[in-house]
């Protein structure tokens, strides 16, 4: 096995892995998309929302605002020992917003969210959330939690995570290809011992000169089955290289759980068709604060005896 980092910046990493099969690559990709946890707003309590954006629509938008994540100091709510419905300082971070339009129209941005913990803050300050006309106001308290992409897409740490095969093609005119590659850059393709290694097929074919030198069919015919180019683009919550490392850790954890269960001979669990998650005590949806007063609004409910 051999890996090579092709490029790395603050939100994207591209790397080559050699000597692994498609099952390994796909498991790694699936783990990055759906299992690596990040922080996102889950519960919101409105004190005031007189804007034209309904509460639930605004809540949905805020849920998708990427927050920087501190994985070392927070735990998943289902793994936390507090058992509180809204979590404790170990499994949630608060954010508040208090904004009012006085004389002018105001656009509310993600930068207006005030984090309780500076390490859990919006990645971008320039995401528009709502517009306020003069006199309107928004005031709420939001709680961010760690979560996984398989529960809701807002908890996916990557905006893109893909892999593709690398191709090896015999070149006829090495000098001409070399000249073209000098202009295209060595993160697109390289010549290794008279053989052209196409790392990024789309990037390679974007250049008309390269396309004329190597036909598309030759590239498709030269795909190598056990070498992949991964492109991981983070939403900004976690550095991209951290996402890859966490994914490996999570996969290893799954394997060790399986191993532990086999060793302990714990292999006769009851499996039902649909298992509801235990975090909501078997309820399908979590209902915010939970305790709603049924009599709220002054409607008199018929007493038990009258209904019979």
């Amino acid at each position, binding site marked *: *096995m*051999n*890996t*090579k*980092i092709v490029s*790395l910046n603050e939100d994207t990493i591209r*790397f080559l*892995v050699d000597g*692994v*099969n498609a*099952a*390994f690559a*796909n*498991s*790694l990709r*699936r*783990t990055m998309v*759906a*299992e690596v946890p990040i922080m996102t707003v889950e519960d919101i309590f409105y004190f005031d929302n007189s804007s034209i954006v309904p509460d639930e629509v605004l809540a949905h938008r805020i849920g998708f605002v990427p927050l920087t994540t501190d994985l070392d100091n927070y735990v998943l709510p289902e793994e936390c020992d507090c058992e509180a419905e809204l979590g404790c300082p170990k499994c949630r971070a608060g954010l508040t917003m208090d904004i009012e339009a006085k004389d002018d129209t105001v656009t509310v941005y993600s930068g207006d969210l005030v984090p309780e913990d500076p390490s859990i803050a919006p990645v971008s300050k320039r995401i528009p959330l709502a517009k306020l006309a003069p006199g309107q106001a928004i005031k709420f308290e939001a709680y961010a939690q760690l979560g996984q992409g398989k529960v809701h897409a807002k908890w996916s740490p990557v905006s893109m995570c893909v892999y593709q095969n690398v191709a090896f093609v015999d070149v006829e005119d090495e000098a001409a290809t070399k000249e073209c590659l000098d202009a295209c850059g060595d993160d697109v393709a390289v010549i290794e011992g008279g053989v052209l290694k196409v790392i990024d097929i789309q990037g390679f074919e974007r250049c008309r000169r390269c396309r004329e030198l190597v036909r598309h069919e030759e590239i498709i015919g030269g795909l190598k089955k056990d070498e992949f180019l991964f492109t991981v683009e983070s939403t900004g919550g976690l550095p991209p*290289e951290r996402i*890859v*490392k966490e994914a*490996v*850790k999570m*996969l*290893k954890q*799954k*394997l*060790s*759980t*399986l*191993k532990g*269960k*086999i*060793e302990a001979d*714990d*292999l*006769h*669990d*009851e*499996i*039902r*068709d*649909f*298992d509801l998650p235990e975090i909501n005590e078997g309820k399908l949806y979590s209902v915010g604060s939970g305790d709603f007063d049924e009599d709220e609004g002054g409607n008199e409910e018929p007493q038990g005896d009258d209904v019979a």
Partner: protein
Amino acid sequence: MKINIVKQEGKYMEMEFSGEGHTLLNLLQDSLLEDKNVEMAGYSKPHPLMDRSNLFIRLRRGERHLDTIKKAVANADGKLDEFLADFEKSLAETVS
């Protein structure tokens, strides 16, 4: 993760998983197939909306299915370790 052995007859075994899907089982299947003693290994998901999958194994010799799975798990774990070490090494080279 919940596991239930549905059937174990001679060289054949069928296992049920709850809370696991393609992510773990595809890796495991592939790892099992690398074992020379495994004649057949496969998995299926009864329905994409259900959080359940079935794993099937048939061995060439013997009836030690669980040992074979443990070996496959160790194999996959080794690959992940190797990848992580390699990845961190090339990362350190890139950053420096």
